């Protein structure tokens, strides 16, 4: 057992660090970590640059699909370096979610059609899973896909409503769970469809969240015609893809590297702020203790994740243990936003929706404070999405503890 990186790994780290330093667009620096809302081009800019560097946009993809073929340790190093530089990571919907589903379960045609666009960042994907009546109980979804034949070709006619569809306002394609057999047991009548978001009958409606963001949407499907060849895996076996995807979604969700960076920033903020007695907030014993506790929790999470990575490296897929990473990872992410909010003090209240473009005017209060409350509100989502933390505990209870 050895914690130190090998010389090769150190060389890899230096290569990644140098590549980011030389190629990350200056205008994007620090943007997402400040809690600002990003436009489509901003989300994709770094993704496109990484893709051209031998598939660095998709660290976990096998080389045959254009991935870099990294070891688990290399992936860990890459994510650490990315967080350190506060890069805008490629969106998860293509790279971490539908991509692995397609290369694991898809037809050769589906792979050829979709994987290059995902890898390159040319095609924006969204996830059509949750429904108003199917949240934690995802398998109760009711969006219906009925098969028809028209001019000798087979189609599904899809009707229903999806919700919490993140950034669907920009999406070119979506992957949807739909019910293809209403008579079967819940999980057994579901299929996994790839749907062109420009298809007639699709309406995307914004949902505005507490910080004023337009991040999530309702997606309405009204007689949307989808070629049968857009179904991934067998009809009525979509739940297999869904489960596979959820397990993959959970591994990245710990967010250790980003949280490390978040704590660094928290400390910098607290150092610059005063506590009201003339000393810095970071020197204040109450605040300092909270930071120390948070750092301790993060180290525990980091080493739990490293153990999981080591397990993966020796051939074990992500198992139900990854639920632990999701629960603890999101608790830490939320705790960071709580402490930033506390650091803002009276200045947590002012609400700056628009940061004037090109304005030199300093925002009211310290700069970090103007997004502190919206970010705190927004990050409550993390214990809800990707399978709520209650569901993650159910998974551990059932799959790990056998309860």
């Amino acid at each position, binding site marked *: 057992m050895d914690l130190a990186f090998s010389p090769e790994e150190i060389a890899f780290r230096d290569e990644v660090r140098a590549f980011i330093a030389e190629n990350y667009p200056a205008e994007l620096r620090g943007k997402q970590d400040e809690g600002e809302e990003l436009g489509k081009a901003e989300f994709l800019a770094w993704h496109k640059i990484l893709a051209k560097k031998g598939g660095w946009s998709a660290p976990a993809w096998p080389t045959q699909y254009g991935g870099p073929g990294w070891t688990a340790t290399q992936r860990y190093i890459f994510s650490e370096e990315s967080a350190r530089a506060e890069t805008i990571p490629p969106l998860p919907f293509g790279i971490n979610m539908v991509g692995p589903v397609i290369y694991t379960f898809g037809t050769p045609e589906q792979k050829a059609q979709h994987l290059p666009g995902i890898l390159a960042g040319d095609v924006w994907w969204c996830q059509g899973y*949750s429904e108003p*009546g*199917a*949240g*934690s*109980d995802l398998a*109760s979804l009711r969006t219906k896909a009925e098969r028809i034949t028209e001019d000798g070709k087979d189609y599904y006619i899809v009707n229903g409503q999806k*919700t*919490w569809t993140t950034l669907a306002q920009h999406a070119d394609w979506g992957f949807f769970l739909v019910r293809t057999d209403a008579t079967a047991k819940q999980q057994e009548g579901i299929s996994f469809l790839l749907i062109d978001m420009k298809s007639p009958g699709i309406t995307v409606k914004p*949902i*505005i*969240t*507490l*910080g*004023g963001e337009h991040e*999530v949407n309702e997606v309405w499907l009204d007689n949307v015609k989808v070629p049968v060849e857009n179904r991934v895996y067998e009809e009525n076996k979509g739940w297999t893809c869904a489960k596979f995807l959820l397990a993959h979604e959970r591994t990245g969700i710990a967010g250790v590297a980003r949280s490390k960076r978040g704590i660094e920033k928290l400390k910098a903020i607290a150092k610059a*702020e*005063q*506590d*009201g*007695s*003339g000393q810095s*907030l970071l020197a*204040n014993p*109450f*605040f300092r203790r909270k930071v120390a506790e948070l750092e301790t929790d993060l180290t525990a999470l980091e080493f739990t994740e490293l153990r999981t990575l080591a397990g993966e490296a020796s051939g074990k897929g992500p198992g139900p243990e990854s639920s632990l990473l999701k629960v603890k990872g999101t608790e830490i992410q939320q705790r960071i936003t*709580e402490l930033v*909010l*506390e650091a*803002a*003090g*009276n*200045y*947590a*209240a*002012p*609400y*700056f929706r628009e940061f004037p473009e090109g304005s030199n005017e300093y925002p*009211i*209060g*310290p700069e970090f404070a103007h997004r502190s*409350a*919206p970010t*705190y*509100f*927004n990050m*409550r*989502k993390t*214990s*809800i*999405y990707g399978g*709520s*933390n*209650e569901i993650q*505990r159910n998974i551990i209870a059932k799959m790990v503890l056998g309860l």
Partner: protein
Amino acid sequence: MDFNFTETQGMLRDTLHRYLADTYDFDKRAAMLKRDGGRDPGVWTALATELGILGAALPEAYGGFGGGPIDTMVLMEEFGRALSVEPYVPTVVLGAGALVETGGAVAEALVPGIIGGEVIIGAGFYEPQGRYNLADIKTTAKKDGAGWVLNGHKAVVVAAPFATHLLVSARTGGSQREAGGVSLFLIDASTKGLVRRDYPCVDGTLASELYFENASVPADALLGAEGGALPLINKLADHAAVAQCAEATGAMKKLHELTLDYAKQRKQFGKAIGDFQVIQHRLVDMFMEAEQAQSMTLMGTLRLDDPNREKWVSQAKAKINKGARALGQWAVQTHGGIGITTELAAGHYFKRLTIVETQFGDLDYHLGRLEALI
């Protein structure tokens, strides 16, 4: 011992409750906040004239009903329950509170105006560098003939954008964090040299940064003794903190009710989510926080004249800050995705409870004050 409200207090509660239930219904509130200027000034006028409640806690000598903090508690709990953005704390608790304490011609002129709804006051006790320390004041007031000239910056002054007067602390002596040398001024909002930067807050209220740039004010702008205002400012802030405890209690109880209703209606896995024990226990925890908030609000209110006032107020605010955060987070978590949208009331209560925590002392501030008093 008697924890019952008087008949008058009961009527006060019912009157305000009925009025706010209609005026502050979810859609009407949303429409109100979207208006030009970010509020409906008619609501405050109605509270003063139609309901006639703004004088409930103020002395009869000024045209009030002769009540006190208990009446304020009754009103604030209803304001909290309705998620009101009305300026009761800065105008009545702080503004009228300061005037009644210091008395004189200014009080006689202005308190009736407060009760009548024409005088609205924003209170600026905090500064950007001072966090919650009321003595950390860099704003200065220098004698200039008969009057004073103010220079400095006051942070996040709630209600200032539409206030007729501003109540601010400034140094007439002493160094930055010294207890002595602090004075209290009530100045006209149209004073030359007072620059406001107005903005909305995340909870729907309105506030300003106040910049004094050689602002000249008359001699009678000084309330109370020159250089000796800190004890009064501390007392006023304690009254405001307890009033906010009452507001938070109302908001917590309402948010608990909303969450309980949701848990009974929302079905997943073939049953109401309230049938799951983990949800039941969370709803019970929320209930216990709301009940303790109620207890601490009552305790703080009844002990505002106690010699150990600071201890009791800090205990109340500390307990409620902690409970409000937990209850708010649990409410959102129980609602799931819909809880972080602007579409249901729950999220808006969560936002207000979050900001209550940051006003008149956060948890660390009040625990710190308590530790110093042990």
